């Protein structure tokens, strides 16, 4: 395993796309130390900012408060990054495979435009989780993002496939212009959830405010959700799905598009 320990939080953002198994897996210790990172406009070496241990491994561990370190795991296709602490913007952006685990919080654009792989964040995430970058036609194409805590604006914006689970509260525009895939909001969301969605599924386990352009269809427990419940259950996220517990109110929209997306809002039995 390769371990990078950030000596101190950099004064300005550090751009470090070299922090990825694809880059490091084949490198000897000295080569890893010499990899370029960008502190503002200055090019520096990894070992200017990190204590480096280990070499040539698919396993990368990053320690210290990396809240200002951007682009970790950019476009990674393999291996595993575990971050003990926080991570900055664009963590796992364009990711194609492999695993990223974060014990703390992450900033915006987590897993933006990723097409595969698995990301788990124990703490909170910023905005644009799994989203499309400005102007792009689609956000995440596949893969899984699990967030234990809350998430910011535009979760899953323009996502096409894949699964995003937010444990806490998501802010406005979750599932904005969504084209497919599944977003599970265990803690609900603020406003404009599913705005302009074309296809895809948003599941909310707590009541949410809906746009006028979503209309109520029916109340039931969709069979497909049982597959997700089983899948996510093994990852530590329970999703209710038994009739005795309650059922989901199904809303379709966004009729402004017009889209055939769905928002499933959990209604506990007797509630």
């Amino acid at each position, binding site marked *: 395993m390769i371990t990078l320990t950030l000596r101190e939080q950099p004064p300005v953002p550090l751009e470090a796309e070299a922090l990825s198994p694809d880059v490091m897996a084949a490198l000897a210790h000295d080569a890893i130390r010499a990899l370029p990172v960008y502190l503002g406009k200055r090019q520096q070496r990894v070992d200017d900012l990190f204590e480096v241990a280990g070499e040539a491994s698919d396993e990368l561990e990053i320690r210290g408060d990396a809240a200002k370190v951007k682009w970790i795991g950019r476009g990674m296709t393999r291996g595993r990054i575990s971050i003990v602490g926080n991570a900055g913007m664009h963590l796992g952006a364009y990711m194609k495979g492999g695993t990223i685990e974060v014990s703390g919080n992450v900033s915006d654009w987590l897993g933006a435009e990723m097409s595969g792989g698995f990301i788990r964040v124990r703490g909170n995430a910023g905005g644009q989780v799994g989203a499309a*970058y*400005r*102007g*792009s*036609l689609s956000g995440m194409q596949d893969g899984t993002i699990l967030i234990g805590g809350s998430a910011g604006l535009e979760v899953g914006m323009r996502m096409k496939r894949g699964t995003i689970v937010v444990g806490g509260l998501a802010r406005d525009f979750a599932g904005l212009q969504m084209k497919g895939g599944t977003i599970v909001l265990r803690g609900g969301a603020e406003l404009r959830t599913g705005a302009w969605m074309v296809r895809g599924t948003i599941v909310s386990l707590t009541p949410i405010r809906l746009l006028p352009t979503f209309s109520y269809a029916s109340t039931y427990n969709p069979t497909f959700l049982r597959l997700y419940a089983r899948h996510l259950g093994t990852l530590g996220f329970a999703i209710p799905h038994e009739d005795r517990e309650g059922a989901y109110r199904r809303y379709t929209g966004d009729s402004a598009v017009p889209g055939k997306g769905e928002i499933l809002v959990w209604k506990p039995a007797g509630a």
Partner: protein
Amino acid sequence: MLRITGGKVHDPANGIDGVVRDVCIADGRIVARAEGGRTIDASGMVVLPGGVDIHTHVAGAALNFARGMTPENFRRAVPFLRTPERRAGLGGITPTTFATGYLYAGMGWTTVNEAAVPILSARHTHEELRDIPIVDKTTCVLMANNEIVLDLLEAGELERAKHVVAWLIWAAKAYGVKAVNPGGIVAWKWGRNANTLSAPVEGYSKVTPATIISSLAGIIDELRLPHPLHIHGNNLGVPGNVSTTIETMKVLEGRRAHLAHLQFHAYGGDDWGSMRSEAAALAEQFNARKDLTADAGAVLFGDALTITADGPWQHLLYQLTGRKWGNVDVENETGCGIVPYVYKGSSLVNAVQWAAGLELLLLVEDPWRIFLTTDHPNGGCFWRYPELIRLLMSADHRRECLKQLPAKALKRIVLPELDRQYTRSEIAIITSAGPARALGLPQKGHLGVGADADVALYDEGRDGGLEFAYPRYVIKGGEIVVEEGEIRAVSEGREFIVRPSFDEQIEEYLRPLFQKVYTMSFDNYPVEMERLARPDVQACG
């Protein structure tokens, strides 16, 4: 002083076809002999006059609008990092101004014609052109939907129209006149279009697209502009539009004209399902019309961005693609639509378009009358010209590409039967000598004594037909700007403009009219000379 020695020179304008001879340069021009100074050993290289792009969109309000609309394209674009010589920028589908200069020069092109300038924002266009380094520029102003001009045509006041057109050209500090979808944009301002050349334009009783075309072409000839009327005909991109194109050619009988991006006007069929290439029929008609020139507007598969003053067409395209759509209508003058587009080899329509462009280039017999363009960025990006050249020079390569097309498409095109292969000198004609002549720039497109010293040197027979992709040397105005394929020096380009004669009194006619229909004061309308970088006024007639 500079001497290029040992290279095979292709200078078709002077009848030189692959002869090894010296090219001498002094004070930015080609000279008979140069004593002392630097010598470039060009043995193993071919020497051509710098490329001239007769129809491209590299600057102006519309293009800048498109840039703002498509950050996703820039994210995927080749970045230009700041160096001691170069400024930072981005390439891609609508390159930034500095990158545009580097990309053209880096390919061996040294003169470009920005083909669509609204007069109202001409000041802006010149600001951008000033920031496009190295290459020389010309511009065409949009006139075929100018309501002041159309009103005069409606009233039959041709003489006054002539003075207005001349005044407008000078006000815009332009070089030529472009007619886009004549009458169609006026109609588009009411959400309609002009599909029939002989039918009155929306809001007019007499003026038809045909009268607009013939009158403007006539006026341009009378004003004796170096470049004839530059026409983007009606019904661009629509299946079956070849009849409109042929009718347009009839309307132009007896007048000079340049037909822009002919490929987009060469379709048969009644709808997208039955669309086919009519390039053969069109080329046959065109071959007989020695007074016309055209550029191909060829299509290459991949990302593009359709950006044209043809508003209605853009709305249709937006409805077809369901993607982004930008539109800017310019008061009294023109409009512009922008829709990002991807040409797919698997699409029947796109396959036909791809073939039609090549068919025109191969079936028009006189290379001096058809020029290499992609109507950048509409059919593809200008920096992909080398791919196009390869397709023209190798029938085998074309056959390879044809294999990728849907079988259905092969029934709609004639490309598979065409064996013609362009020679290097013919390439020099359609990329330089021809367009220079059509633009009326005697100092461009050749290597004769007195010509501007714009020269491109390529390794002979470099990697599989792509020999024109990476020049070893590019000389612009006598200065070596590209050396060993790298931008070494960045010079400023000139802007060619014309000042056709007009009766100064015409301003008295225009001033009151202006206050009525414009929102800009008359005195702010004309572009001041000092706005231009190194202006160079060309003579008329």
